[in-house]
């Protein structure tokens, strides 16, 4: 069997497709943003992403490969072979899968290699990698089964490729049936039942691909169906139905991760991160250092800033989350915590004009604090911002003498505190 397997691997038309698979894998891994490098869960999701492109290509190639018996008109000869048909199918499918999995594995190794230096202890999360494997196995199996069942010489590859592409992309839109993720974070984890259901679906399609004989007698090696073939095929189909049902009742693909012992910096204020996000610590510590230089006596700074998910939701409204690796994205949460701790009383304003004045003062204060904490003006690729605030002008303020800034801030704080209540 092993010898036959290696012959299949050597002779498979997939050997011509393999460079394309490899190219697509590495392009899909490194062609997008690079912020995932250095964070294990992010790197795992990134390594899984190429599967969504490799899968459909593999489906087309598998359909082409599996159609060889019909294409070459060898149906009767294979039916007369000494070995049962499913063994031939299994070996051929295994060879196809070997090429797909090998390309996928190269991407995984590359993702791990570029991540290991910055990320520290830990490794790629197997859950995301298995999710990608489910896509690859499922697509290859779907292509194989269509290529084997159809007597057409041109349809199966193109239909398999385009249809699996459609299915993978479309299911991605749905929360409960998605087979892949587009990004990840340390605060999320893949649920066990969802992962198992997806793997079950993929391997059930693989069982169908190997075991279920085609209904068209002329395309079927051996001509008639033996009871054992019917039994095996029926079992495979039943397994597929069970797997689809388990997918329907499984948990959502990802849930909030159970909190772990956080990685906390020293000093006051300090920050507590998910350990996987440790590569951001030096930059966040620089932000904390800038927070310590805020004008004394004007602001109340919380003693610890938490990354989202590390403590219960109720207390963590202003907990930060590093979005797409941008540390600018966490400064609004820092600002929110500081402003909320500084101004603890709040009442509805007496009239609309006073309300507007107060809101504007809040917005300007937020903008100034963001710039101070980042030690820079807002970068050009960050869009949006509070309405009615000249972000650039407030950003320039941080370069003016400290006394001038204190005066400016005091005005805003006074506006907020002295807003007449209704």
């Amino acid at each position: 069997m092993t010898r036959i397997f290696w012959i299949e691997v050597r002779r498979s038309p997939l050997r011509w497709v393999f460079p394309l698979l490899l190219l697509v894998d590495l392009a899909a891994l490194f062609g997008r943003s690079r912020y995932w490098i250095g964070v294990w869960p992010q790197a795992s999701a990134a390594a899984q992403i190429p599967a969504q492109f490799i899968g459909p290509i593999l489906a087309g190639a598998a359909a082409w490969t599996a159609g060889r018996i019909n294409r070459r008109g060898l149906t009767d000869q294979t039916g007369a072979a000494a070995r049962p048909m499913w063994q031939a199918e299994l070996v051929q499918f295994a060879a196809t899968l070997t090429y797909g999995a090998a390309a996928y594995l190269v991407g995984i190794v590359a993702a791990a290699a570029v991540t290991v230096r910055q990320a520290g202890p830990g490794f790629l999360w197997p859950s995301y990698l298995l999710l990608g494997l489910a896509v690859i196995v499922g697509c290859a199996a779907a292509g194989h089964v269509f290529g084997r069942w159809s007597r057409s010489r041109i349809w199966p590859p193109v239909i398999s490729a385009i249809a699996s592409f459609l299915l993978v992309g479309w299911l991605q839109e749905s929360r409960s049936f998605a087979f892949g993720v587009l990004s990840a974070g340390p605060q999320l984890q893949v649920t066990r039942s969802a992962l198992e259901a997806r793997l079950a679906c993929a391997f059930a399609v693989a069982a169908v691909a190997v075991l279920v004989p085609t209904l068209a007698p002329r395309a079927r090696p051996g001509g008639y169906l033996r009871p054992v073939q019917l039994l095996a095929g029926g079992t495979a189909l039943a397994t597929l139905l069970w797997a689809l049902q388990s997918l329907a009742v499984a948990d959502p693909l990802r849930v909030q991760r159970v909190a772990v012992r956080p990685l906390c910096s020293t000093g006051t204020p300090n920050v507590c991160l998910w350990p996987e996000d440790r590569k951001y610590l030096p930059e966040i510590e620089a932000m904390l250092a800038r927070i310590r230089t805020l004008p004394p006596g004007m602001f109340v700074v919380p003693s610890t800033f938490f990354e989202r998910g590390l403590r219960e939701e109720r207390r963590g409204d202003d907990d930060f989350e590093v979005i797409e690796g941008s540390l600018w994205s966490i400064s609004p949460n820092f600002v929110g915590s500081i402003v909320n701790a500084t101004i603890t009383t709040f009442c509805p304003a007496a009239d609309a004009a006073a309300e507007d004045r107060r809101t504007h003062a809040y917005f300007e204060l937020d903008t100034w604090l963001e710039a101070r904490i980042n030690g820079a003006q807002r970068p050009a690729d960050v869009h949006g911002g509070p309405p009615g605030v000249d972000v650039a002008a407030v950003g320039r303020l941080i370069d003016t003498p400290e006394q001038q800034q204190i005066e400016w801030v005091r005005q805003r704080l006074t506006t907020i505190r002295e807003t007449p209540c209704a």
Partner: protein
Amino acid sequence: MLERRADWLRYARAHRLVGTLTGAALIAASDLVVGAWNLSMPAATGTGFTVVPFRQELPAAVAALAVASMYSTMENLERMGGMRLRCFERAHVVTAILAAAALMWTAEAATAGPGPAGAGARSALIWGCAAVVSGRSFGWRLSWVLPVSTLFPLIYYGHGHDGAARWWNWPDQPANAPVPWLLAAASTLIAAAAFRATPWRGHALRRVHWPSRLAPTGAGRNEVEASNDNG
């Protein structure tokens, strides 16, 4: 004239024209259902993904299938066909591409209106030409290879950092955008050249320019078998 029609019917039967074009029509008709499905795929954009409606990719399948009807079970014999067969093939490939474009136009006009209809027909034209190049290179059965291969770069790299379609991303451009029509014209020229690049023309070219590279006997036969041995 009657004889000519009988030839046509025989040609159509050998190429399973009716079956293939019916299939292509069915796939185009599936646009009514799946055309509006949004696919969210990873992409090199600012957000890391892009959402494309499937109607933009469907013409690739329709065009690839229509052109794949150039394959016949007598492919090897047809490689040596004479003027008459060449004439049929020329009419066939032009009809196949135009039929794909017309099918996409009709399906899109019925589901999404005249604007997307023009874009869909244009996409079918471009992918049909790509299918001709692919069919000439790898054999007509594999005419889907090039059209399907374009999907990855189009989807993954087809949008800029801000998510706007790049100029060469023809499926995601409106029907009145000029660049995709230029692409369509260019791909028509390339496809015409590829269609003319028959094995015997290549052979003749080599005989004139590199006579030493030709094996003394049986070179043509080996070439046909080698290029047909991709399954």
